[in-house]
């Protein structure tokens, strides 16, 4: 068997998790290609290599479909940052982060950074809608009648909040995301006071308009820099990894959703 070439080894890994249809692939497209284009539900997973200064950062886009759920742990193994993505107009997608995706991150690095990202901010009638202009043939995305279409995900809100017509689509408040962040830290057994604060780690983005997308990725790139440097030194020292390391974490009790 020939020793074929491997791709340039990335210095660090960032993984995007989240339910199907929340816009993970779209976010990554927006960041890397500066545009919003049609996507198809991701099969398996894919990754981008991003050159960030002298470093190579791999960003894994995972599949949200239930069918591929089992692969998540493997993608997360050794991740330095995980982007937990939900759809701001779909309360269920936030709940799923805790129900289904959080446990996948057990294989991530012990000092992994977690970001909670509410995407599709353009549908919530806040400022992101106005951040128009970042081209892309996306204007015809069914915005007839001035009312934004409901999210393609038909799940009803878990808490039957009565929403006015104006904020029709916004089903997840920032507070919900912030409190999820707190629960994640508790789940990880991390001391909140030693961790990055929730207001820095909870983002609202729009892959469609580009709102906050660069900020999200570039904030994370800066935050994983210590991991990069550590990886570089470790790689010089020993190539093996203690596989036992991760055994315990999976058995910890999960915090339940409200």
């Amino acid at each position: 068997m020939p020793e074929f070439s491997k791709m340039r080894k990335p210095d660090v890994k960032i993984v995007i998790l989240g339910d199907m249809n929340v816009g993970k692939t779209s976010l990554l497209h927006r960041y890397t290609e500066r545009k919003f284009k049609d996507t198809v539900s991701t099969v398996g997973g894919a990754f981008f290599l991003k050159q960030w200064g002298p470093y190579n950062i791999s960003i894994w886009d995972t599949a949200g479909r239930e069918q591929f759920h089992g692969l998540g742990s493997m993608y997360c193994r050794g991740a330095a940052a995980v982007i937990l993505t939900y759809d701001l107009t779909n309360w269920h997608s936030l709940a799923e982060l805790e129900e289904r995706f959080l446990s996948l991150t057990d294989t991530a690095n012990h000092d992994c950074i977690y970001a909670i990202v509410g995407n599709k901010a353009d549908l919530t009638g806040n400022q992101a809608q106005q951040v128009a202009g970042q081209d892309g043939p996306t204007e015809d995305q069914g915005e007839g009648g001035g009312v934004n279409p409901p999210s393609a995900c038909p799940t009803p809100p878990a808490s039957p909040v009565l929403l006015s017509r104006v904020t029709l689509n916004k089903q997840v408040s920032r507070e919900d995301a912030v409190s999820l962040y707190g629960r994640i830290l508790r789940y990880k057994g991390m001391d909140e006071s030693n961790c990055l604060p929730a207001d820095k780690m909870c983002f609202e983005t729009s892959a469609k308009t580009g709102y906050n997308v660069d900020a999200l990725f570039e904030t994370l790139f800066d935050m994983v820099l210590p991991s990069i440097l550590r990886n570089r030194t470790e790689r010089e020292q020993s190539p093996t990894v203690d596989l036992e390391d991760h055994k315990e974490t999976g058995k910890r009790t999960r915090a339940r959703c409200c």
Partner: protein
Amino acid sequence: MGTERKGTEAVIHRRLRNQICSSNGWVDACCAAEMSVKAFELVPAVARELLMGDKARINIECIECCGKHLYIGTNDCFIHHFLLEETTTKGTLSYSVQKQLVRYLGLKKPVDALKAASALERLIVLCDSTLSMVDMVTLEPVPSGGSKVRGVAAFCINENPVNGDPFCVEMGVISARRRTVQVYMLYEDRVQLVKEVTTPEQPCAVSLDGYFLCLALSSQYMILNYSTGAAQDLFPYDSEERKPIVKRIGREEFLLAAPGGLGMFANAEGVSQRAPVNWSESVIGAAVCFPYVVALDEGFITVHSMLDQQLKQTLSFRDGHILQDFEGKVVLASTKAVYVLVPLPLERQIQDLLAGHRVEEALTLTEGAQRNIPKDKFQILHKRILQQAGFIQFGQLQFLEAKEHFRTGQLDVRELISLYPLLLPASSSFSRCHPPLHQFADLNHLAQGDQEKVQKCKRFLITYLGEVRSTEGANGCREDVDTALLKLYAEQDHDSLLDLLASPNACLLADCAPWLEKHHKYFALGLLYHYNGQDAAAIQIWVRVVNGELQDSTRSDLYEYIVDFLSFCSNLDLVWKYADWALQKDQTIGVKIFTLRTLAKNQTKDQTGQINPDDVITYLGKHNQALLLYLEHLVLERRIKKEKLHTHLAVLYTDRVLSLLAQSSSMDAQVSAARDKLQLLLRESNLYRVQLLLGKIQDCNQLLLERATLHGKLEEHDKALHILVHQLKDFPAAEAYCVWGSASRDAGYQQHLYHLLLGVYLDRDIPGSSSTGPGGSNGTGELEMAAVDLLNGHGEVFDAVQVLGLIPEGWSLQLLRPFLGRALRGSMHAHRTSQLALGLARSENIQLHHDRLKQRRSPVLVSDQKGCHLCHNTFSEPDCVCLPGGVPVHTHCAAKRVVPDSPIKRQLANTSNHT
């Protein structure tokens, strides 16, 4: 993000874009359209007749290939041995098969697996859950030197053995009943169990690399380090529902069948470093033949690229049930026959991709093959592919991408230029490379008559050449590049044409001149001639444009440009040749040929390109206006101090004034402007011949001021003042005359002039003034008032005592009060100041006396032990200087340090004679 990073990012993006696309699954939708790559060819190896003839129940169960040896195990417990010989006829590869031995194992059970241990010349056979060995050639059983390994469900060979012994084969074995995996070392004479590991579930497939066992269990995959016992769960997989695949594809890397029909990659650390490929759910076998993953399912062989995860090729294959790779050779089997999946040469694959305009994929494939091709060969290939890719994109007007590929592919820029008809100079030695990099004959062929396309391409070439010019890329073909660029600029009416010609360039004159003419770029043509040292031709062209013989509106001020050009031109013949032309058009502008020119510095060695002003003056004789301007230039601007020039200029000025005065139609303003110039020259210059001028204006009563000035030059101040006071009656002018006349002279001279003026004012014997009667007395009164004003206004310059003697008796004290008051105060002040100075001098004198006496009282000690305080050397002679405080220093040291007039110096003077 910085632009410098763009290049690498572009490449990465390109690759990754493809990855994302493929993983998103649109391959399913697009494969029909996209799959034109032929990466592999399926070549029959062993036909059905050779194996089982038409016995329908006999099936192939397993295969093994080792070098030329092909072994086939069947369900009726036979092992068939063949020799496979590759033959290539007319570029197509085929296999000829020689049947060797056939062996019946005598069990009526299927042969489940065969593996060659070539170092031991054995074939390991799995049949009836038992591992045994046969000789590779005779297929005779070989005693394994002990108990057979029984209860085996599956086994694998370690392709990355940990044992250094080349005659030892390492084997991973799955037990059929117990949840264990065993590792054996197989020697020539024995089989040794090295390790037994229990697994949480029943294992059903295994692969071994180093110490790492990659296992498919009934509900998941895992990686197990049998040396440390460390285990790593990979991901869930229902092995009962679907056949798992565990395929070692390289050092510590495995390919696994994953839920949803994925092919997942995992390394020994349990990390996926490549994005998965998207197979079908029913995949049976998979292998890697770099850079492709080939997989077999119920009806097809699929080929995915590992570089971009895209599906590249699908080959239909019925009844397939085995796909395995043996030392890079992918062998497939249906139940009845064996085939080899032969990869097409990489270059051909790449060319196929390029032919389908699939640039990104072609490049990805090329770059992915880097490690498999020798470096120098790769570089040549890579460059060529980049260039071809560039041309494809160029043809699609994707200029940014094309440029990037031309640049990275180090394209000979002439390949591109040669696409544009007539741009390369006729003398260029260039010929396109062979085989050609593209299929375009030329730009017209490419554009198919679409003029807009042609224009776009031309604009692109302009920017591209502009950029290439400044890089090494143009080395060796600068003439071609610059000539092409010039032609494009000219044709496109581009502003940079002139910049190109005005800066260092390698445009070929012979080729460019007709082109510029054709496009009426005569100004540019002149520049080109000039750049090539043909100034005469340059000017000739330009003059024809100015004269209207040729049309070129590049410069509306071409005439001025020519004048300017001539003023710098070092070829004097040319200057003289065209000076007349220039002067005839406009003397004031034409004269700049001479005035802008740097003048000959006297006696400089290099006189080339220098013009003698006298020649110019002679030459300009017939061009009055120009001559005047030229003289003004020499005298007023260059301040050349030559009597001839000054006199000449003064005479010209005078003539002009006189002629203006003579014409009744002259305007006052004209006259006064001309006079101002004359007066200024007369006042400021000391070089002209005064008498000559005086003679010229002697008879003109309107030029009194000029006459006064001329008298002044002759120091005939009384005459001058007389004119000013009595004829012009211009008292301010008279006073100004005193200031002018005594400028740069001493105070005495000034006083002298003022006294003269006073005298003129008070002179009663002026015929004109005394004879005028009442008017005269009026005049006298006027003069007296002027005298009073002069005294009161400039009292300080007068000698008061003398003045008192001059003024008429009858003047009242009151009249001269300001003058007298100031005179008195002045003399008082002088008196007191001198008194003060006297007192100060006295006191200083006394002070110094005191010091001297003090110094005298005690001796100044000088010895050769004690050095001088200033230079620290010892004293060699008794002479010394005593600083205040009695410090002795060398006389010369003191002299050096002391600033003249400082108190120390004075002290010095007093003490230097002591020792």
